[in-house]
Protein backbone atom coordinates (compact mmCIF):
# COMPACT_ATOMS: atom_id res chain seq x y z
CA UNK A 1 0.00 0.00 0.00
CA UNK A 2 1.36 3.41 -1.01
CA UNK A 3 1.19 6.09 1.69
CA UNK A 4 1.53 9.83 1.38
CA UNK A 5 2.72 11.67 4.51
CA UNK A 6 2.79 15.40 5.19
CA UNK A 7 3.92 17.57 8.11
CA UNK A 8 4.13 21.36 8.27
CA UNK A 9 4.19 21.96 12.01
CA UNK A 10 7.76 23.28 11.98
CA UNK A 11 9.78 25.52 9.69
CA UNK A 12 10.37 22.44 7.52
CA UNK A 13 7.57 21.35 5.26
CA UNK A 14 8.09 17.59 4.95
CA UNK A 15 6.36 15.16 2.63
CA UNK A 16 6.97 11.59 1.65
CA UNK A 17 5.64 8.82 -0.52
CA UNK A 18 6.21 5.42 1.02
CA UNK A 19 5.71 2.51 -1.35
CA UNK A 20 5.53 -0.04 1.44
CA UNK A 21 8.00 -2.25 -0.47
CA UNK A 22 11.17 -0.41 0.41
CA UNK A 23 10.66 2.32 -2.20
CA UNK A 24 9.99 5.89 -1.26
CA UNK A 25 10.46 9.57 -2.03
CA UNK A 26 10.87 12.57 0.22
CA UNK A 27 10.43 16.30 -0.12
CA UNK A 28 11.58 18.93 2.32
CA UNK A 29 11.34 22.71 2.14
CA UNK A 30 12.36 25.31 4.66
CA UNK A 31 11.04 28.76 4.02
CA UNK A 32 9.07 31.14 6.13
CA UNK A 33 5.36 31.12 5.45
CA UNK A 34 5.67 29.18 2.22
CA UNK A 35 4.13 25.90 3.44
CA UNK A 36 0.56 26.54 2.47
CA UNK A 37 1.55 27.63 -0.99
CA UNK A 38 4.01 24.78 -1.51
CA UNK A 39 2.22 21.81 -0.01
CA UNK A 40 -0.10 20.89 -2.86
CA UNK A 41 2.52 21.52 -5.53
CA UNK A 42 4.93 19.34 -3.56
CA UNK A 43 2.35 16.55 -3.42
CA UNK A 44 1.82 16.85 -7.14
CA UNK A 45 5.52 16.70 -7.95
CA UNK A 46 6.24 13.83 -5.55
CA UNK A 47 3.44 11.83 -7.12
CA UNK A 48 4.54 12.80 -10.61
CA UNK A 49 8.23 11.97 -10.06
CA UNK A 50 7.32 8.62 -8.53
CA UNK A 51 4.81 7.96 -11.33
CA UNK A 52 2.04 7.38 -8.82
CA UNK A 53 -1.52 8.46 -9.66
CA UNK A 54 -3.45 9.94 -6.71
CA UNK A 55 -5.93 7.10 -7.10
CA UNK A 56 -3.14 4.60 -6.33
CA UNK A 57 -2.67 5.96 -2.81
CA UNK A 58 -3.84 3.70 -0.01
CA UNK A 59 -3.74 6.11 2.94
CA UNK A 60 -2.65 9.60 3.99
CA UNK A 61 -0.63 10.42 7.10
CA UNK A 62 -0.54 13.88 8.69
CA UNK A 63 1.81 15.32 11.27
CA UNK A 64 -0.77 16.81 13.61
CA UNK A 65 1.54 18.97 15.72
CA UNK A 66 1.98 20.51 18.14
CA UNK A 67 3.59 23.43 16.35
CA UNK A 68 2.54 26.49 14.39
CA UNK A 69 -1.29 26.63 14.49
CA UNK A 70 -1.45 27.60 10.83
CA UNK A 71 1.17 25.01 9.91
CA UNK A 72 -0.59 22.07 11.53
CA UNK A 73 -3.87 23.16 9.96
CA UNK A 74 -2.26 23.14 6.52
CA UNK A 75 -1.03 19.55 6.92
CA UNK A 76 -4.28 18.34 8.45
CA UNK A 77 -6.42 20.15 5.84
CA UNK A 78 -4.31 18.74 3.00
CA UNK A 79 -4.33 15.21 4.43
CA UNK A 80 -8.00 15.08 5.29
CA UNK A 81 -9.07 16.64 2.00
CA UNK A 82 -6.94 14.24 0.00
CA UNK A 83 -8.09 11.17 1.93
CA UNK A 84 -11.73 12.24 1.74
CA UNK A 85 -11.52 12.85 -2.01
CA UNK A 86 -9.88 9.47 -2.63
CA UNK A 87 -12.05 7.57 -0.18
CA UNK A 88 -9.01 6.26 1.72
CA UNK A 89 -8.05 6.34 5.41
CA UNK A 90 -6.26 9.28 7.04
CA UNK A 91 -4.25 8.95 10.21
CA UNK A 92 -2.51 11.51 12.40
CA UNK A 93 0.91 11.18 14.00
CA UNK A 94 2.09 13.72 16.58
CA UNK A 95 4.97 15.69 15.08
CA UNK A 96 7.04 15.25 18.25
CA UNK A 97 6.76 11.43 17.92
CA UNK A 98 8.06 11.57 14.36
CA UNK A 99 10.92 13.86 15.34
CA UNK A 100 12.01 11.58 18.19
CA UNK A 101 11.74 8.44 16.07
CA UNK A 102 13.89 9.97 13.35
CA UNK A 103 16.90 10.50 15.58
CA UNK A 104 17.90 7.53 17.74
CA UNK A 105 19.98 8.03 20.89
CA UNK A 106 20.67 4.49 22.15
CA UNK A 107 21.98 5.28 25.64
CA UNK A 108 19.87 8.24 26.55
CA UNK A 109 16.67 10.16 26.19
CA UNK A 110 15.45 11.99 23.10
CA UNK A 111 13.72 15.27 23.62
CA UNK A 112 12.15 17.13 20.68
CA UNK A 113 11.20 20.67 21.64
CA UNK A 114 9.60 23.32 19.49
CA UNK A 115 9.59 27.02 20.20
CA UNK A 116 6.05 27.89 21.32
CA UNK A 117 6.91 31.62 21.81
CA UNK A 118 6.31 33.58 25.04
CA UNK A 119 9.24 31.64 26.59
CA UNK A 120 7.35 28.37 26.27
CA UNK A 121 8.07 25.17 24.39
CA UNK A 122 6.11 22.25 23.03
CA UNK A 123 7.97 19.10 23.87
CA UNK A 124 7.99 15.49 25.04
CA UNK A 125 10.55 13.07 26.42
CA UNK A 126 11.25 9.66 24.85
CA UNK A 127 13.48 6.73 25.69
CA UNK A 128 14.99 5.02 22.72
CA UNK A 129 15.50 1.39 23.59
CA UNK A 130 12.86 0.22 23.42
CA UNK A 131 11.36 3.39 21.84
CA UNK A 132 8.66 4.79 24.11
CA UNK A 133 7.34 8.14 25.28
CA UNK A 134 8.05 8.95 28.93
CA UNK A 135 5.80 12.02 29.05
CA UNK A 136 2.73 13.30 27.31
CA UNK A 137 2.82 16.19 24.83
CA UNK A 138 3.69 19.22 26.89
CA UNK A 139 3.30 22.97 26.50
CA UNK A 140 5.38 24.51 29.30
CA UNK A 141 7.77 27.34 30.07
CA UNK A 142 11.25 26.10 29.11
CA UNK A 143 12.42 26.04 32.75
CA UNK A 144 9.50 23.87 33.86
CA UNK A 145 10.11 21.52 30.98
CA UNK A 146 13.81 21.13 31.81
CA UNK A 147 12.95 20.42 35.42
CA UNK A 148 11.44 17.13 34.28
CA UNK A 149 14.88 15.99 33.11
CA UNK A 150 16.81 16.26 36.36
CA UNK A 151 17.71 12.52 36.50
CA UNK A 152 21.11 11.25 35.38
CA UNK A 153 20.75 10.09 31.76
CA UNK A 154 22.18 11.92 28.73
CA UNK A 155 19.60 13.76 26.66
CA UNK A 156 19.62 14.45 22.94
CA UNK A 157 17.59 17.58 22.15
CA UNK A 158 16.29 18.46 18.72
CA UNK A 159 13.95 20.96 17.14
CA UNK A 160 13.85 24.74 16.77
CA UNK A 161 13.26 25.12 20.51
CA UNK A 162 16.48 23.24 21.22
CA UNK A 163 18.41 25.40 18.78
CA UNK A 164 16.98 28.62 20.15
CA UNK A 165 17.56 27.73 23.80
CA UNK A 166 20.76 25.70 23.31
CA UNK A 167 22.76 27.69 25.86
CA UNK A 168 20.14 27.59 28.59
CA UNK A 169 19.65 23.85 28.04
CA UNK A 170 23.37 23.06 28.17
CA UNK A 171 23.89 25.20 31.26
CA UNK A 172 20.95 23.62 33.01
CA UNK A 173 21.85 20.02 32.19
CA UNK A 174 25.60 20.51 32.66
CA UNK A 175 27.31 18.02 30.36
CA UNK A 176 24.33 15.73 29.86
CA UNK A 177 22.71 17.63 27.02
CA UNK A 178 23.44 17.40 23.30
CA UNK A 179 21.66 19.48 20.71
CA UNK A 180 21.18 17.99 17.25
CA UNK A 181 22.19 20.22 14.33
CA UNK A 182 19.39 21.80 12.34
CA UNK A 183 19.73 19.33 9.45
CA UNK A 184 18.54 16.54 11.77
CA UNK A 185 16.04 18.58 13.66
CA UNK A 186 12.92 18.27 11.55
CA UNK A 187 10.18 15.67 11.19
CA UNK A 188 11.10 13.38 8.28
CA UNK A 189 8.32 12.43 5.92
CA UNK A 190 9.38 8.78 5.59
CA UNK A 191 9.53 8.38 9.37
CA UNK A 192 6.06 9.91 9.61
CA UNK A 193 4.82 7.55 6.90
CA UNK A 194 6.22 4.49 8.69
CA UNK A 195 4.61 5.53 11.96
CA UNK A 196 1.32 6.19 10.21
CA UNK A 197 1.44 2.74 8.65
CA UNK A 198 2.00 1.21 12.10
CA UNK A 199 -0.89 3.16 13.56
CA UNK A 200 -3.25 2.13 10.78
CA UNK A 201 -2.19 -1.51 11.22
CA UNK A 202 -2.95 -1.14 14.92
CA UNK A 203 -6.44 0.09 14.06
CA UNK A 204 -5.91 3.81 14.80
CA UNK A 205 -7.33 6.63 12.69
CA UNK A 206 -9.11 6.02 9.43
CA UNK A 207 -11.93 8.55 9.05
CA UNK A 208 -10.63 11.71 7.33
CA UNK A 209 -13.44 13.73 8.94
CA UNK A 210 -12.08 12.87 12.38
CA UNK A 211 -8.47 13.86 11.65
CA UNK A 212 -7.69 16.86 13.88
CA UNK A 213 -4.69 18.95 14.92
CA UNK A 214 -2.99 18.57 18.29
CA UNK A 215 -3.02 22.25 19.30
CA UNK A 216 -2.10 21.79 23.01
CA UNK A 217 -3.04 25.42 23.51
CA UNK A 218 -6.19 27.48 23.21
CA UNK A 219 -6.24 30.66 21.15
CA UNK A 220 -5.19 33.81 23.01
CA UNK A 221 -8.71 35.17 22.79
CA UNK A 222 -10.11 32.08 24.52
CA UNK A 223 -7.46 32.32 27.22
CA UNK A 224 -8.38 35.94 27.91
CA UNK A 225 -12.10 35.35 27.69
CA UNK A 226 -12.88 31.93 29.20
CA UNK A 227 -16.31 30.42 28.63
Amino acid at each position, binding site marked *: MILLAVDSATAFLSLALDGGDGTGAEFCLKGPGAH*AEAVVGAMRSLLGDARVR*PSQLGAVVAGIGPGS*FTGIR*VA*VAAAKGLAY*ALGIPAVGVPTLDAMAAGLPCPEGLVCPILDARRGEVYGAVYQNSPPAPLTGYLNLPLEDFLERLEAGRPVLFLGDGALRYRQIIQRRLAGRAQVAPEAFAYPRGLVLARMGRERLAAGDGGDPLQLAPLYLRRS*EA*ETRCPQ
Partner: protein
Amino acid sequence: MGRGSRLLANVIASQAALHRRFGGVVPEVASRRHLETVLPVVDQALSEAGTSLAGLDAVAVTAGPGLVGSLLVGVTVARVLALALELPLVGVNHLEAHLYAHLLPSEGAQGFALPAVCLVVSGGHSDLIYWRDHGDLEVLGRTRDDAAGEAFDKVARLLGLGYPGGPALDRLARRGNAHAVSFPRAYLEEGSHDFSFSGLKTAVASYLRRVEREGRAVEHADVAASFEQACVEVLAEKLTRAAAQRGVRGVGVCGGVAANTALRREVRARAVARGLAAWIPDPGFCTDNAAMVAAAAWHALARGTARLDPIVDPNLPVDGVDSGAGGTGDKPRNPS
Protein backbone atom coordinates in the same frame (compact mmCIF):
# COMPACT_ATOMS: atom_id res chain seq x y z
CA MET B 1 -24.06 24.12 -9.06
CA GLY B 2 -25.16 22.23 -12.11
CA ARG B 3 -25.56 22.84 -15.83
CA GLY B 4 -26.73 26.34 -16.76
CA SER B 5 -25.56 27.55 -13.31
CA ARG B 6 -28.54 25.81 -11.70
CA LEU B 7 -28.16 25.83 -7.93
CA LEU B 8 -28.32 22.25 -6.59
CA ALA B 9 -27.30 22.77 -2.95
CA ASN B 10 -26.15 25.59 -0.69
CA VAL B 11 -24.89 24.57 2.75
CA ILE B 12 -23.73 27.10 5.34
CA ALA B 13 -22.04 26.43 8.69
CA SER B 14 -22.37 29.78 10.46
CA GLN B 15 -19.93 30.66 13.24
CA ALA B 16 -21.97 33.58 14.59
CA ALA B 17 -22.82 31.80 17.83
CA LEU B 18 -19.22 30.66 18.33
CA HIS B 19 -17.85 34.22 18.24
CA ARG B 20 -20.63 35.89 20.19
CA ARG B 21 -18.79 35.91 23.51
CA PHE B 22 -15.77 37.63 21.90
CA GLY B 23 -17.88 40.40 20.40
CA GLY B 24 -16.37 39.79 16.95
CA VAL B 25 -14.72 37.15 14.81
CA VAL B 26 -11.51 35.79 16.37
CA PRO B 27 -9.31 34.63 13.45
CA GLU B 28 -7.71 31.68 15.27
CA VAL B 29 -11.06 30.45 16.59
CA ALA B 30 -12.58 30.82 13.12
CA SER B 31 -9.77 28.87 11.45
CA ARG B 32 -10.08 26.02 13.91
CA ARG B 33 -13.81 25.72 13.38
CA HIS B 34 -13.49 25.95 9.59
CA LEU B 35 -11.10 22.99 9.59
CA GLU B 36 -13.63 20.95 11.57
CA THR B 37 -16.63 21.83 9.40
CA VAL B 38 -15.22 22.03 5.88
CA LEU B 39 -15.54 18.36 4.95
CA PRO B 40 -18.92 17.77 6.62
CA VAL B 41 -20.23 20.79 4.71
CA VAL B 42 -18.85 19.48 1.40
CA ASP B 43 -20.33 16.08 2.20
CA GLN B 44 -23.75 17.53 2.97
CA ALA B 45 -23.76 19.69 -0.17
CA LEU B 46 -22.98 16.67 -2.34
CA SER B 47 -25.71 14.62 -0.75
CA GLU B 48 -28.30 17.43 -0.96
CA ALA B 49 -27.42 17.85 -4.62
CA GLY B 50 -27.93 14.14 -5.11
CA THR B 51 -24.43 13.65 -6.47
CA SER B 52 -20.98 12.53 -5.36
CA LEU B 53 -17.38 13.62 -5.79
CA ALA B 54 -17.27 11.56 -9.00
CA GLY B 55 -20.03 13.76 -10.42
CA LEU B 56 -18.00 16.99 -10.17
CA ASP B 57 -16.51 18.85 -13.15
CA ALA B 58 -14.69 21.60 -11.27
CA VAL B 59 -13.99 22.91 -7.77
CA ALA B 60 -14.24 26.59 -6.79
CA VAL B 61 -12.93 28.36 -3.71
CA THR B 62 -12.58 31.88 -2.33
CA ALA B 63 -8.93 32.95 -2.64
CA GLY B 64 -9.39 36.36 -0.95
CA PRO B 65 -9.86 38.95 0.35
CA GLY B 66 -10.47 37.79 3.91
CA LEU B 67 -8.82 36.38 7.01
CA VAL B 68 -5.71 34.53 5.93
CA GLY B 69 -6.16 31.59 8.35
CA SER B 70 -9.69 30.93 7.15
CA LEU B 71 -8.72 31.31 3.51
CA LEU B 72 -5.89 28.82 3.97
CA VAL B 73 -8.23 26.11 5.20
CA GLY B 74 -10.60 26.55 2.27
CA VAL B 75 -7.94 26.87 -0.40
CA THR B 76 -5.83 23.95 0.89
CA VAL B 77 -8.81 21.60 1.00
CA ALA B 78 -10.05 22.76 -2.40
CA ARG B 79 -6.61 22.29 -3.93
CA VAL B 80 -6.24 18.71 -2.71
CA LEU B 81 -9.79 17.87 -3.81
CA ALA B 82 -8.89 19.12 -7.28
CA LEU B 83 -5.59 17.22 -7.20
CA ALA B 84 -7.17 13.95 -6.10
CA LEU B 85 -10.12 14.17 -8.48
CA GLU B 86 -8.00 15.58 -11.34
CA LEU B 87 -10.34 18.55 -11.78
CA PRO B 88 -9.76 22.25 -12.49
CA LEU B 89 -9.70 24.49 -9.44
CA VAL B 90 -11.12 28.01 -9.81
CA GLY B 91 -10.13 30.79 -7.43
CA VAL B 92 -12.81 33.40 -6.78
CA ASN B 93 -12.62 36.89 -5.33
CA HIS B 94 -14.94 37.17 -2.33
CA LEU B 95 -16.32 40.57 -3.32
CA GLU B 96 -16.94 39.45 -6.87
CA ALA B 97 -18.67 36.38 -5.47
CA HIS B 98 -21.03 38.66 -3.50
CA LEU B 99 -21.97 40.34 -6.78
CA TYR B 100 -22.88 36.95 -8.26
CA ALA B 101 -25.55 36.58 -5.57
CA HIS B 102 -27.60 38.68 -8.01
CA LEU B 103 -27.53 35.76 -10.45
CA LEU B 104 -28.77 33.20 -7.94
CA PRO B 105 -32.43 32.25 -8.02
CA SER B 106 -34.12 34.76 -5.72
CA GLU B 107 -37.26 36.82 -6.09
CA GLY B 108 -35.59 40.09 -5.08
CA ALA B 109 -33.05 39.92 -7.88
CA GLN B 110 -35.31 38.74 -10.71
CA GLY B 111 -34.53 40.32 -14.06
CA PHE B 112 -31.01 41.34 -13.01
CA ALA B 113 -29.05 42.50 -16.04
CA LEU B 114 -25.59 43.88 -16.71
CA PRO B 115 -24.34 46.53 -16.74
CA ALA B 116 -25.41 47.57 -13.25
CA VAL B 117 -24.09 49.57 -10.33
CA CYS B 118 -23.89 47.45 -7.19
CA LEU B 119 -23.23 48.02 -3.55
CA VAL B 120 -21.36 45.36 -1.57
CA VAL B 121 -22.04 46.07 2.10
CA SER B 122 -20.87 43.83 4.92
CA GLY B 123 -18.85 43.78 8.11
CA GLY B 124 -15.69 44.04 6.04
CA HIS B 125 -16.71 46.04 2.98
CA SER B 126 -18.70 48.99 1.72
CA ASP B 127 -17.83 49.09 -1.95
CA LEU B 128 -19.70 50.79 -4.76
CA ILE B 129 -18.98 48.85 -7.95
CA TYR B 130 -19.77 49.53 -11.58
CA TRP B 131 -20.28 46.04 -12.97
CA ARG B 132 -19.99 46.46 -16.71
CA ASP B 133 -19.79 42.79 -17.65
CA HIS B 134 -18.54 39.45 -16.36
CA GLY B 135 -14.90 39.95 -15.41
CA ASP B 136 -15.14 43.70 -15.95
CA LEU B 137 -15.57 45.62 -12.70
CA GLU B 138 -14.72 49.12 -11.63
CA VAL B 139 -14.72 50.14 -7.98
CA LEU B 140 -16.28 53.61 -7.96
CA GLY B 141 -15.99 54.16 -4.23
CA ARG B 142 -15.47 52.47 -0.90
CA THR B 143 -15.43 53.26 2.76
CA ARG B 144 -12.62 55.45 4.04
CA ASP B 145 -12.90 54.08 7.58
CA ASP B 146 -15.40 51.62 9.03
CA ALA B 147 -17.41 49.30 6.81
CA ALA B 148 -21.18 49.79 7.12
CA GLY B 149 -21.56 46.46 8.86
CA GLU B 150 -18.84 47.43 11.30
CA ALA B 151 -20.79 50.58 12.19
CA PHE B 152 -23.92 48.46 12.67
CA ASP B 153 -22.05 46.11 15.01
CA LYS B 154 -20.50 48.95 17.01
CA VAL B 155 -23.79 50.79 17.45
CA ALA B 156 -25.47 47.51 18.38
CA ARG B 157 -22.85 47.09 21.09
CA LEU B 158 -23.48 50.64 22.35
CA LEU B 159 -27.15 49.69 22.63
CA GLY B 160 -26.27 46.48 24.45
CA LEU B 161 -27.48 44.23 21.65
CA GLY B 162 -24.46 41.87 21.60
CA TYR B 163 -22.84 40.23 18.60
CA PRO B 164 -23.61 39.87 15.78
CA GLY B 165 -25.39 43.18 16.11
CA GLY B 166 -26.79 43.72 12.62
CA PRO B 167 -29.88 41.50 12.78
CA ALA B 168 -30.71 42.57 16.37
CA LEU B 169 -30.37 46.25 15.44
CA ASP B 170 -32.63 45.68 12.43
CA ARG B 171 -35.35 44.12 14.60
CA LEU B 172 -35.11 46.86 17.24
CA ALA B 173 -35.16 49.68 14.67
CA ARG B 174 -38.42 48.43 13.19
CA ARG B 175 -40.15 49.50 16.41
CA GLY B 176 -38.49 52.94 16.50
CA ASN B 177 -38.96 56.37 14.95
CA ALA B 178 -36.30 56.99 12.31
CA HIS B 179 -36.69 60.76 12.64
CA ALA B 180 -36.42 60.92 16.44
CA VAL B 181 -32.73 61.83 16.43
CA SER B 182 -30.92 63.65 13.65
CA PHE B 183 -27.56 61.95 13.11
CA PRO B 184 -25.06 63.28 10.52
CA ARG B 185 -25.10 62.05 6.91
CA ALA B 186 -21.54 61.78 5.59
CA TYR B 187 -21.81 62.59 1.88
CA LEU B 188 -18.16 63.71 1.81
CA GLU B 189 -17.01 66.08 -0.93
CA GLU B 190 -19.17 66.84 -3.96
CA GLY B 191 -19.36 63.93 -6.38
CA SER B 192 -17.49 61.46 -4.18
CA HIS B 193 -18.60 57.83 -4.32
CA ASP B 194 -16.76 57.04 -1.09
CA PHE B 195 -18.33 56.37 2.30
CA SER B 196 -17.41 57.17 5.88
CA PHE B 197 -19.23 55.70 8.87
CA SER B 198 -16.92 56.30 11.81
CA GLY B 199 -18.33 59.81 12.38
CA LEU B 200 -21.87 58.46 12.51
CA LYS B 201 -20.86 55.81 15.03
CA THR B 202 -19.16 58.49 17.16
CA ALA B 203 -22.27 60.70 16.92
CA VAL B 204 -24.41 57.86 18.28
CA ALA B 205 -21.95 57.28 21.13
CA SER B 206 -21.87 60.96 22.13
CA TYR B 207 -25.66 61.24 21.83
CA LEU B 208 -26.06 58.31 24.23
CA ARG B 209 -23.56 59.85 26.67
CA ARG B 210 -25.28 63.26 26.54
CA VAL B 211 -28.73 61.85 27.13
CA GLU B 212 -27.44 59.80 30.01
CA ARG B 213 -25.69 62.85 31.53
CA GLU B 214 -28.91 64.83 31.29
CA GLY B 215 -30.71 62.04 33.08
CA ARG B 216 -33.20 61.51 30.26
CA ALA B 217 -34.47 58.09 29.29
CA VAL B 218 -32.96 56.70 26.07
CA GLU B 219 -35.45 55.24 23.65
CA HIS B 220 -33.18 52.54 22.21
CA ALA B 221 -35.52 51.69 19.34
CA ASP B 222 -35.56 55.36 18.22
CA VAL B 223 -31.76 55.57 18.36
CA ALA B 224 -31.45 52.34 16.37
CA ALA B 225 -33.95 53.52 13.75
CA SER B 226 -32.38 56.99 13.48
CA PHE B 227 -28.88 55.55 13.13
CA GLU B 228 -30.05 53.10 10.49
CA GLN B 229 -31.80 55.86 8.58
CA ALA B 230 -28.68 58.05 8.53
CA CYS B 231 -26.62 55.10 7.34
CA VAL B 232 -28.94 53.69 4.66
CA GLU B 233 -29.86 57.10 3.25
CA VAL B 234 -26.25 57.76 2.29
CA LEU B 235 -25.75 54.23 0.94
CA ALA B 236 -28.95 54.32 -1.12
CA GLU B 237 -28.43 57.87 -2.37
CA LYS B 238 -24.84 57.30 -3.51
CA LEU B 239 -25.77 53.98 -5.11
CA THR B 240 -28.71 55.30 -7.13
CA ARG B 241 -26.91 58.53 -8.04
CA ALA B 242 -23.92 56.58 -9.41
CA ALA B 243 -26.29 54.34 -11.36
CA ALA B 244 -28.06 57.32 -12.89
CA GLN B 245 -24.71 58.87 -13.84
CA ARG B 246 -23.57 55.67 -15.52
CA GLY B 247 -26.85 55.28 -17.35
CA VAL B 248 -27.44 51.68 -16.27
CA ARG B 249 -30.89 50.13 -15.94
CA GLY B 250 -30.71 49.28 -12.28
CA VAL B 251 -28.86 48.87 -9.02
CA GLY B 252 -27.92 45.85 -6.94
CA VAL B 253 -27.20 45.42 -3.26
CA CYS B 254 -25.38 42.44 -1.74
CA GLY B 255 -23.30 41.46 1.28
CA GLY B 256 -24.50 40.82 4.82
CA VAL B 257 -25.89 44.34 5.37
CA ALA B 258 -28.06 43.90 2.27
CA ALA B 259 -30.25 41.74 4.49
CA ASN B 260 -31.15 44.88 6.46
CA THR B 261 -34.82 45.84 6.13
CA ALA B 262 -34.28 49.61 6.15
CA LEU B 263 -31.56 49.45 3.51
CA ARG B 264 -33.68 47.30 1.20
CA ARG B 265 -36.63 49.70 1.59
CA GLU B 266 -34.52 52.84 1.10
CA VAL B 267 -32.74 51.50 -2.00
CA ARG B 268 -36.06 50.45 -3.57
CA ALA B 269 -37.61 53.86 -2.88
CA ARG B 270 -34.69 55.86 -4.27
CA ALA B 271 -34.35 53.56 -7.28
CA VAL B 272 -38.03 54.05 -8.16
CA ALA B 273 -37.62 57.81 -7.82
CA ARG B 274 -34.77 57.71 -10.35
CA GLY B 275 -36.50 55.27 -12.70
CA LEU B 276 -34.10 52.46 -11.90
CA ALA B 277 -34.67 48.80 -11.17
CA ALA B 278 -33.59 47.61 -7.73
CA TRP B 279 -32.20 44.07 -7.57
CA ILE B 280 -31.63 42.81 -4.06
CA PRO B 281 -31.01 39.08 -3.57
CA ASP B 282 -32.97 37.31 -0.85
CA PRO B 283 -31.29 37.66 2.57
CA GLY B 284 -29.92 34.09 2.51
CA PHE B 285 -27.84 34.93 -0.57
CA CYS B 286 -26.71 38.31 0.82
CA THR B 287 -24.81 36.91 3.78
CA ASP B 288 -21.70 34.82 3.03
CA ASN B 289 -22.50 31.63 1.15
CA ALA B 290 -20.83 29.22 -1.24
CA ALA B 291 -23.56 29.36 -3.89
CA MET B 292 -22.33 32.81 -4.91
CA VAL B 293 -18.75 31.47 -5.14
CA ALA B 294 -19.94 28.66 -7.39
CA ALA B 295 -21.89 31.13 -9.55
CA ALA B 296 -18.84 33.37 -10.00
CA ALA B 297 -16.69 30.36 -10.91
CA TRP B 298 -19.32 28.96 -13.27
CA HIS B 299 -19.42 32.19 -15.28
CA ALA B 300 -15.63 32.50 -15.30
CA LEU B 301 -15.27 28.92 -16.56
CA ALA B 302 -17.95 29.46 -19.19
CA ARG B 303 -16.05 32.49 -20.49
CA GLY B 304 -12.60 31.00 -20.20
CA THR B 305 -11.50 33.71 -17.76
CA ALA B 306 -11.25 31.50 -14.66
CA ARG B 307 -8.24 32.04 -12.38
CA LEU B 308 -6.99 28.47 -12.09
CA ASP B 309 -4.88 27.08 -9.24
CA PRO B 310 -5.23 30.10 -6.96
CA ILE B 311 -3.11 30.84 -3.95
CA VAL B 312 -4.39 32.62 -0.87
CA ASP B 313 -4.29 36.41 -1.04
CA PRO B 314 -5.83 38.09 2.03
CA ASN B 315 -5.80 41.42 0.14
CA LEU B 316 -6.92 40.15 -3.26
CA PRO B 317 -8.24 43.20 -5.13
CA VAL B 318 -11.52 42.94 -7.00
CA ASP B 319 -10.41 45.30 -9.77
CA GLY B 320 -6.64 45.56 -9.43
CA VAL B 321 -6.86 48.08 -6.56
CA ASP B 322 -6.04 46.95 -3.03
CA SER B 323 -9.11 46.88 -0.80
CA GLY B 324 -7.14 46.87 2.44
CA ALA B 325 -9.09 43.96 3.94
CA GLY B 326 -7.80 40.80 5.55
CA GLY B 327 -4.85 40.21 7.85
CA THR B 328 -3.91 37.91 10.65
CA GLY B 329 -3.78 38.09 14.40
CA ASP B 330 -5.83 37.00 17.33
CA LYS B 331 -8.03 40.01 17.94
CA PRO B 332 -11.74 40.05 17.21
CA ARG B 333 -12.55 41.29 13.74
CA ASN B 334 -15.58 41.86 11.67
CA PRO B 335 -16.57 39.25 9.14
CA SER B 336 -16.55 40.11 5.47
